[in-house]
C-alpha cells in the first residue's frame, strides 16, 4: 500500500447538517495508528463512522486510501461498538469470522483455501480458534468481542477502524488484541481506534483528544497532559502508567 490511509482537511462530522465534531485535520500513513480519545458524545464514534462511509461528511475534505470516502470499502475494516443480534443469530464463531471475507470474493464464488487459511490465522491471533464451532450466543461478552476482532482481521484490510475494540476484554484478551494490532501494522495496515482506554491510546503513534473539537493532536506523551485531559473530559485527570487518575472535579469546559 503506497497511498495515504486517511487525509482529512477541516473536516466536520455529525448527523444531517448538525456537526458534532469540527476542525479535524488528519493524515495517517500506512502502518500508522491514531487513537481518538474523548468522553461520551465527544464525536469519536461519529468520526469513525464517517471514515467508514456510514455517515456523510458535514463539511470539509476526506480521502480514504487515495479515494473519496466510501469508495474503498473492500479495503477498509470497521468494528462497530454495538452488535445487533449476537444472542439470537444461529451462527458459530467461525461463521462470524468468515463474514469478514464476504466482499473479498465475487458474489457466487465459493470460499477458497486462502480464505480458510486467513480465517484460521485471524482466529488464532485472537485466541478464539478453539471456540470456532461454538455458537456465538453461547460465548461470553469478551469472547464475542475477540470473535468480532478476528472478523476485522480476516478482512486483511489496509485501514482498520475500531470503535472501543478492548471493551469487555480481560488481560489475556487485551494481550491477544495487542499482538493482532502489531501484526496488522507490520503488514502495513493503518489503524484508527476510538477508545476510553488510555493504555490503548498510549500504544498509538498519535492521539486526538476530542470534545466536539480537536483539543490536542500529537504523540501520546506530548498530548496527554493534565491540562489537555481536563479540557477533554471536564474533570482533572493525570496519566499514571496506563491509568487516568482523577485529581480534581471540574465540570466546565
Amino acid at each position: 500500500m503506497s497511498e495515504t490511509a486517511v487525509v482529512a482537511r477541516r473536516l466536520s462530522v455529525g448527523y444531517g447538517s448538525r456537526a458534532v465534531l469540527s476542525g479535524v485535520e488528519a493524515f495517517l500513513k500506512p502502518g500508522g495508528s491514531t487513537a481518538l480519545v474523548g468522553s461520551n458524545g465527544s464525536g469519536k464514534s461519529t468520526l469513525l463512522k464517517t471514515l467508514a462511509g456510514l455517515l456523510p461528511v458535514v463539511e470539509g475534505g476526506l480521502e480514504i486510501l487515495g479515494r473519496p470516502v466510501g469508495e474503498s470499502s473492500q479495503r477498509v475494516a470497521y468494528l462497530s461498538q454495538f452488535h445487533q443480534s449476537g444472542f439470537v443469530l444461529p451462527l458459530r464463531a467461525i461463521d462470524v469470522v468468515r463474514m469478514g471475507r464476504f466482499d473479498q470474493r465475487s458474489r457466487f464464488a465459493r470460499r477458497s483455501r486462502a480464505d480458510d487459511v486467513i480465517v484460521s490465522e485471524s482466529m488464532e491471533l485472537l485466541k478464539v480458534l478453539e471456540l470456532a464451532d461454538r455458537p456465538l450466543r453461547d460465548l461470553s461478552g469478551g469472547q464475542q468481542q475477540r470473535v468480532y476482532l478476528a472478523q476485522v482481521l480476516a478482512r486483511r484490510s489496509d485501514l482498520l477502524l475500531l470503535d472501543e475494540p478492548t471493551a469487555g476484554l480481560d488481560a489475556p484478551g487485551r494481550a491477544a488484541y495487542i499482538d493482532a494490532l502489531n501484526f496488522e501494522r507490520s503488514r502495513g495496515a493503518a489503524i484508527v481506534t476510538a477508545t476510553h482506554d488510555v493504555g490503548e491510546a498510549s500504544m498509538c503513534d498519535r492521539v486526538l483528544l476530542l470534545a466536539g473539537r480537536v483539543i490536542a493532536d500529537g504523540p501520546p506523551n506530548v498530548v496527554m497532559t493534565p491540562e489537555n485531559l481536563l479540557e477533554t473530559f471536564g474533570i482533572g485527570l493525570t496519566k499514571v502508567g496506563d491509568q487516568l487518575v482523577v485529581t480534581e472535579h471540574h465540570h466546565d469546559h
Partner: protein
Amino acid sequence: MGNFVDPFLHNGFMQRALFAGILVSLTCAIVGTYVVLRGMAFIGDALAHGVLPGVAGAIILGLPAMLGAAVGAAVMVGGVGFITARSKLSNDTAIGLLFIGLLALGVVLVSSSNKLTGDLESILFGQFLGVANTDLLAQALALLVVLVVSVFSARPFLLLCFDGDLTRAMGYKAQWYHRLMLLLIAGTVVVSFQTVGSLLVFGMLLAPAGVGALLAKRIGTMMMWAAVIGIVSTYLGLLASYHFSWAAGASVVLTAVAIFFVVLTGVSLKKSVQGVRA
C-alpha cells in the same frame, strides 16, 4: 395406518391442500427465518392484516383478490417508509398506525358490502381445502422467486441480520436489501393468503422459523428445521381437520404453534438438566 394416509390417497382436495401446504411451508421457512432473525415480526403481522382492505376492495370491484392483496401490501410498505421519512416517529409507530388503519378500512369495506359476507372468513382464514391449481402454480412460482432472491442475496441478508452498519461498511446497499427483504415478506403474504388466510400466514412465517431458531446453530439448518416443522404441521393439521372437521388453515397453524411450545419446553428442560449436572 389407514387413518393417517387414506385421506390423502383418496381425496384430490386433500392432495392439493397437502401440496399447497408444503409449498407455503418451504416459502415461509426461508422468509420466516429472516423475519425472526431481524425482529421483523411486527411488520410481518401488519402486512398479514394490511392486505384485508386490498382483498375486500378487489372483490367488490370484481378484480383478482391477489391483485388487491398486493396493493394492500404495497400501501403498507410504502406508508411505513413515507411516515418514517417525514416524521421523527419510530418504525414501530408507523407500522402500528398503518396496521390498524388498514385493518379498520378492511372492516368498513366488508361491513358496507353484501358481496363480501361469505368471503370474509376465507380472506382471514384461507381456503386450504379449496385450493385451485392456479393457486398452486402461483405458490410454486413464489417459492422459486424466494429461493432465487435468497441465494442471490445470501451474503448481504446474513450481514443485515448480523449488523446493519457492518453491511454498509462492507459496501452493500443495506437499505436496498432491507426493502428486498420486505418485498419477500409482502410477496409471501400476498401469495399464501389464499391458502392459509391473511391472519394465519403470519403463524406459518413465525412458528416454524421460531422452532428453527431454538434448535439450529446455523442459518441454513434453521431454514431446514423451519421447512420440516412447517411440512409436519401441514400434514398433522390437515389430518386433524379431516377427521375432526376443524378449520384446515387454523389446524395447521395451531399444530405449528403447539410444536413450538413443545420444543421450547424440551430445550428449556435440557438446559436445566445440563445446569444441574454442571
